[in-house]
């Protein structure tokens, strides 16, 4: 009996947790005439009209594309630079390694919110305001530490003998990195790709500061502005929200195990 009660309570919690998302999806498909019905009533006749309207007229197609470009570039470049740096930190001997380790540790402590004012000035100084490149550099810098540590923790597990053997066989450092070490760190690559893509996709603050021209904007800023000007457009807002959520929800459902492992990796060891 206890088991069933437990299952029942958990079931209720699970339904409460997803219901805000389900209600939003319901609303996004409702014809305007059905808005008088309570939010938990499913749409009687489905309409895609709000999606079409938001996608074409409100510019969400462009926001979507901008967000996709920034997030994908972030993820790919992060994998490369974080793994290279982690390789140097783990396999190479050099002076100042401890200083460098502390420097990377500092990165784990810096809250983005606290340093956005000077960050804005630096991006402006490079002439990168209103460019995707400016946002990408900022994203990479602010999350780099996390992923250097993610890769390091995998690299440390590579058997020293394997590494030495490759070196004796005359392989260059880059060949060892490419052929020996990276294939072992595939889980770290997946974790990095997923988390960096997700963080980049979801961020508002940096994009709000660095992208002010409409054609450069991302979904987060686009949705914020849409909300500001079309406050009462419940159906439009719902479909905009769904458009923003769909890609990451799908990624999560496909790679749930990796997400969960990535999110807990830093926290529990």
């Amino acid at each position: 009996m206890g088991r069933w009660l437990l299952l029942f309570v958990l079931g209720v919690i699970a339904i409460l947790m997803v219901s805000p998302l389900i209600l939003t999806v319901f609303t996004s498909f409702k014809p305007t005439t059905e808005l008088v019905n309570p939010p938990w009533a499913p749409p009687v006749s489905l309409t895609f009209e709000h999606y079409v309207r938001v996608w074409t007229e409100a510019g969400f197609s462009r926001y979507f594309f901008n967000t996709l470009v920034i997030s994908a570039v972030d993820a790919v470049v992060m994998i490369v630079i974080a793994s290279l740096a982690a390789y140097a930190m783990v396999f190479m001997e050099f002076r100042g390694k401890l200083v460098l380790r502390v420097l990377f540790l500092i990165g784990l402590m810096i809250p983005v919110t606290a340093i956005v004012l000077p960050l804005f000035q630096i991006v402006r100084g490079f002439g990168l305001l209103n460019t995707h490149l400016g946002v990408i550099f900022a994203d990479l810098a602010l999350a780099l530490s996390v992923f250097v540590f993610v890769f390091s923790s995998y690299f440390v597990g590579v058997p020293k003998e394997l590494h030495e053997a490759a070196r004796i066989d005359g392989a260059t450092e880059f060949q060892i990195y490419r052929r020996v070490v990276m294939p072992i760190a595939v889980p770290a690559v997946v974790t990095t790709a997923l988390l960096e893509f997700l963080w980049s996709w979801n961020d508002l603050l940096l994009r709000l500061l660095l992208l002010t021209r409409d054609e450069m904007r991302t979904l987060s800023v686009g949705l914020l502005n849409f909300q500001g000007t079309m406050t009462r457009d419940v159906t439009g807002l719902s479909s905009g929200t769904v458009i923003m959520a769909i890609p990451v929800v799908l990624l999560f459902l496909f790679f749930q195990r990796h997400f969960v492992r990535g999110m807990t990796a830093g926290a529990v060891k």
Partner: protein
Amino acid sequence: MFLDPESKWAPRLNLFLFLMPALTIYIVFAIYPTFSVVEYSFTDWDGISPKRNFVGLANYERLFTDKIFWAAFRNTFVWSGVIIVINVGLGLVIAAMLARVWKARLLIQTCIVLPVVISPMAVATIWRWMYQPTGVINQVLEGIGLGGLATPWLGSPGAVLYALALAHSWSTIGLSVVIFLAGLQAVDENLYEAAHVDGANAFQSFRYVTLPALRPVTAVVFILTLTQSFKVFDIVWATTQGGPVRFSEILSTYMYKRGALEKQYGYGSAIGVALLVIVSLATVIYMQIQSKEDR
């Protein structure tokens, strides 16, 4: 051969090539601004003019007498407190229940963790809509006979901060649950066995076996929730911008207003430094606990 491993210079060149991409970006766009924000905080810069004057501690003196800063400071702590109570307390309870269930466990876990990946901006839109005076929250309250509690949540001075904290907790509690679950799986099964033999009921074994075993994990979730909730900007900015009046103003939104919108770079930076100090302290404690764990 440019990268000939036999060459005397190869190790240095390699080191340079491996570290330089990451290090350049990192120093220019993360480390340098961290020092800059401290430097700005001692000036009267407006963010635009080429000239900035050194004003010593003037911005910090102003901080201490600024009623709005202290309101934001207080709100930030209340905000974090509420989120910690929910994410740590309820998170632990949900994880403990989930650990005892096999049927439908993955499905339930998926539902609880799913909101974690939703953008704070989307979370803001969803909850703003649900919190409307005629929104679904008030409709449900009326439906179950608690219509007296209905209020315009985001417009109510007494409720707004708690309402937003609840929305934030909704979107982050999945992370706590997952971390607690990982911790629970590491608890020695034999301890439960022994407790069962000694005649302990479910509550007692939770109280005397699970809780002590989870103390380090609880500390981790506690500090993690604390640092993450201190950094929040998006969801508050996208719903109330700190309003009504200042009732949901937190440090990050106040800094954004003074610094980015009003162009008081010096003063905004002083607020940023306050935020930096608090989060760094919490993170240092967090890493200390973790390194103790590793040993």
